[in-house]
């Protein structure tokens, strides 16, 4: 039940448009329970139930694929557009531009910075989306096999590994490119370490809704999910190593739904 709760929390914290695109973990779990309790009946019934289960899983996978690729397409477009936009701003209001204006330049750059950071965040959240759905699928398959004595998990998961929604290479690449852009667009400042840390701690108290919060939620969820399950086995993930765990935990100070 722990994963189910975590997933639910993440969904609640996720961007609104995404909320119905996640795995229907609870429903699938119910189905598995139904199937396993009705096991005692006809053998043919079991094969039928498995087919039904597989059918539902495939529907979920379709859902993921469609959503994932739509988002990916959007990201490709926006990524390019951001680059163009930066170029335009520099060429127009930059020192060597057509109509140099420091005020405009600063203003526009501030906006760009904000947009880029949020864009970066959204992309990372899509990778997270992919991963959490995969994790859910793996868990549900494990449950199925355990309860029904089936052999569904191993071959099915192999298929899942090749689904478009799981192959996040392109989005990850865009994320990294975005990080490079961010490095370029953010000025280098010579503050000393102490001051930076202090400011960060103060910034913690205002961690708000939206992408940032979703990111924090995702990170902490991941840590919790991997903390060590009751059914720890060879197909389980080891506990996560999150270097700034305390810092990230403190981001939740104002959260009505503490994820601890």
């Amino acid at each position, binding site marked *: 039940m722990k994963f189910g709760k975590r997933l639910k929390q993440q969904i609640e914290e996720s961007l609104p448009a995404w909320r119905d695109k996640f795995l229907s973990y609870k429903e699938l779990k119910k189905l598995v329970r139904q199937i396993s309790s009705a096991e005692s009946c006809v053998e043919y019934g079991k*094969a039928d139930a498995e087919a039904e289960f597989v059918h539902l899983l495939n529907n979920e996978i379709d859902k993921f694929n469609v959503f994932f690729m739509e988002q990916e397409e959007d990201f490709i477009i926006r990524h390019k*557009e951001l680059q163009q936009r930066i170029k335009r701003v520099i060429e127009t209001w930059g020192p060597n531009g057509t109509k140099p204006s420091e005020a405009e330049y600063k203003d526009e750059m501030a906006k760009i910075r904000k947009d880029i950071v949020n864009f970066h965040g959204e992309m990372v959240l899509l990778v997270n989306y992919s991963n959490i759905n995969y994790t859910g699928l793996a868990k549900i398959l494990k449950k199925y096999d355990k309860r029904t004595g089936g052999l569904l998990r*191993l071959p099915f998961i192999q298929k899942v590994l090749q689904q478009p929604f799981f192959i996040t290479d392109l989005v990850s690449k865009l994320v*990294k490119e975005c990080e490079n852009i961010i*490095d370029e667009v953010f000025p280098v400042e010579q503050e000393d370490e102490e001051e930076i840390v202090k*400011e960060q701690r103060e910034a913690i108290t205002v961690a708000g809704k939206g992408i940032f919060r979703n990111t924090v939620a995702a990170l902490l969820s991941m840590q919790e999910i991997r903390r060590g399950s009751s059914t720890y086995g060879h*197909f389980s993930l080891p506990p996560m190593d999150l270097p700034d765990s305390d810092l990230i935990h403190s981001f939740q100070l104002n959260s009505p739904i503490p994820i601890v």
Partner: protein
Amino acid sequence: MPSSFLALTSFKDKYSTSPSSFQVSSGREVMENSAPLQESSLAPSNGTLGNSSLSPSIVTDHMCASALPHVQHSHNPAFISQSSRDLASLPPLDASFSQSTASLIRTQGNKDVSWSLDRLQMFLDLPENTPAPNQLVESSTGVLASEDHNKKTNWQEWADDLINVVDPDWSKILDNTNVLNPRVEVPKPSGDISKQQPQFHQNQLVPHGEFSSHAYPSSTAPPTKPRMRWTPELHEAFLEAVNQLGGSERATPKGILKLMNVEGLTIYHVKSHLQKYRTARYMPETSEGTSEKRITSIEEMKSIDLKTSIGITEALRLQVEVQKQLHEQLEIQRNLQLRIEEQGRYLQMMFEKQKKVEDEKGGVPSSASDDLLAPLPGSKHPPCNNGKSDSEALEQDHSRTGIGPGNAGTNEDKSSSGVSTKQKMLETESTVHDESGFSVSKRARTEK
């Protein structure tokens, strides 16, 4: 679990001697194995539900082929499969990342280089991003960097230690495994897929000559709206066409389609892409889509900003750091998941092979195997083929064409003791299948 350990280290050995070839072969192997598995399992679903719309959601041959590089990509150097218990005691697999991840976090770049517009321009001009030296100033990043570095060295040391513990016989077995993997060809059930596949395969080649093997579709149920997976290269081609036609307002989908000249691209794809593009262009400040998306922490921070005197820039930096962390963790997790599954698959195959060998020899297993192979009460799987999932049937095929009698002698000793260990390792995954010829239907299942 000594023998399993040996089995796993032999993967490493094989890999360390010829890294690129191992990547290729392992990648291909995954493809070959999974393709038949997928296609065969299409059959029962179609049969029982009479619904051909199931098939599109399962990856087919062509998609396998084009997905190959991605599997390769995730097989990083220092690939070592280990039981997850051992993994837990190890530092996280930072070293197993692709280099770009590492470089971003660890590069203590030119901190004294000031922000130069020239560099920015240069950067923007490059179509494919070549990362400029990072100017990470954050102290937190510095902390991250040193930690990561430590983990990396630890990991490498441990990996190096493993290399020395190599059992050459196991590598031979693995070689045989790779070579003798059957490729079960199952005719594609859905005509729609086969129609679409060859077309989309071309997508990769036409734009710019350099193709991203990413451009394969996943077909959805209704064939009238095939899903297209866009790539940056494809998008570039799109942009070129649009510009030639006078901009996003003036260009028509038909014209764009014609100019792009990409096989398999339909006007629907272009239409929807054009729509997205127009939205993105003319709503740059707000986001593309609902304004809800833009309720960000920054806006909230701005208002409270005055009280807490934090620069927006600093808040943004913080946000990026957290996002980067999430991304890093996700990559780690994904790699782990891939490896776990790969390991499970290999073990399963080896186990099947061993079972096959024992069956061939007329059922003279060691006493250890005997206990495990004893029929459990209330064994659930029916011997008839209807009840079996096709994956099981396929595993039998694997066993059948697996190790021939010639090899049986060399690996039997190791395998027998290996079987019991593997049995435990596979837990609920391990099964023993008999072909219908055998009198007793056995099924071994170890509980946790």
